[in-house]
């Protein structure tokens, strides 16, 4: 991992020095149901005019890595292009019985559970390929979960730039202050991917993150 971190660092440095044109991979990471695909859809609707994936209240709706190539966004006089990588939510447990509560039939629940475990493994494997990451967290939930800390810790260890997004700020229980105090070393932006609240501020921060 040390070698990989060094390679990432070197790639970024050389890219800046020689202004080489490279494809930037911007990953959306976070726990299940934090709104990663909602955010991917928001970005794609705003800049490409169409959605990227389906969203659902049932956890682990995204069970495969989805990539949207050549997304270009503008904020002020800055313009960035990247490949947007929407990843399955990272979890430490997946119980098919949890899906039964959402009225899935046992076979579908078992299939979903199997695909979800594979999705988590893939999401972790893809960490190494990211150039920068937006960590999407549900601002109504406790941010001190070990999954959040593990993802952020891994990104820091790999020297991958991170922007923390507190999603679902349109909900009453949203608590951005708690999110900020949990991750004081990172810039935290509160948004509602569903309603589009404060996404302009997010796009501005994204241009800084990618540059």
């Amino acid at each position, binding site marked *: 991992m040390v070698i990989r971190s060094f390679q990432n660092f070197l790639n970024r440095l050389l890219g800046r020095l020689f202004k080489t044109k490279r494809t930037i991979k911007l990953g959306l990471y976070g726990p299940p149901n934090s709104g990663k695909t909602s955010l991917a859809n928001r970005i794609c609707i705003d800049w490409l005019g169409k959605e990227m994936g389906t969203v659902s209240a049932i956890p682990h709706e995204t069970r495969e890595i989805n990539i949207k190539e050549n997304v270009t966004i503008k904020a002020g006089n800055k313009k960035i292009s990247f490949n947007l990588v929407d990843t399955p939510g990272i*979890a430490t447990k997946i119980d098919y019985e949890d899906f039964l509560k959402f009225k899935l039939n046992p076979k579908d629940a078992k299939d979903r559970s199997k695909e979800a475990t594979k999705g988590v493994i893939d999401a972790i494997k893809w960490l190494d390929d990211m150039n920068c990451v937006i960590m999407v967290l549900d601002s109504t939930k*406790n941010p001190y979960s070990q999954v959040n800390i593990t993802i952020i810790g891994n990104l820091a260890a790999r020297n991958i730039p991170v922007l923390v997004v507190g999603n679902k700020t349109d909900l009453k229980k949203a608590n951005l202050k708690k999110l900020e105090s949990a991750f004081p070393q990172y810039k935290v932006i509160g948004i509602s991917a569903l309603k589009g609240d404060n996404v302009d501020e997010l796009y501005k921060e994204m241009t800084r993150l990618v540059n």
Partner: protein
Amino acid sequence: MLTFQLIPYSEISGLNSEAKIKKILNIVKENKIVLMQGKLKPSEETTLIQRTMEDVTREFSGIELCTVYPAEKRNRELWAILKALMVKYIIGDREGLTIIGPASVVKEIKKDPNRIELFMHSKKKKKR
């Protein structure tokens, strides 16, 4: 009955990452809660999640995981920082405590900066 198994630092310091994770998962699969002295490296934590996901079955749905680590003291003098680094280098990073339990026993571990709460399942779930 709940069973906690302590893993002292001396028991895992000589193991490589894969062996460390195998040891932890073997204990957790026996429905015991691991209390490990020290913490895993970030890369070991992700490997633990990967191995857990590979092993998910009807009987084993995964783990609950939590690490408690003393907060970094800010505005420390350079000497104090160097001393702490030297101690870590010589005797290893023994600070902190890692709690890992089977998801079938531990429903949730809630962590706030200053406290940890373990929520257990009230009774063993019947698998259909």
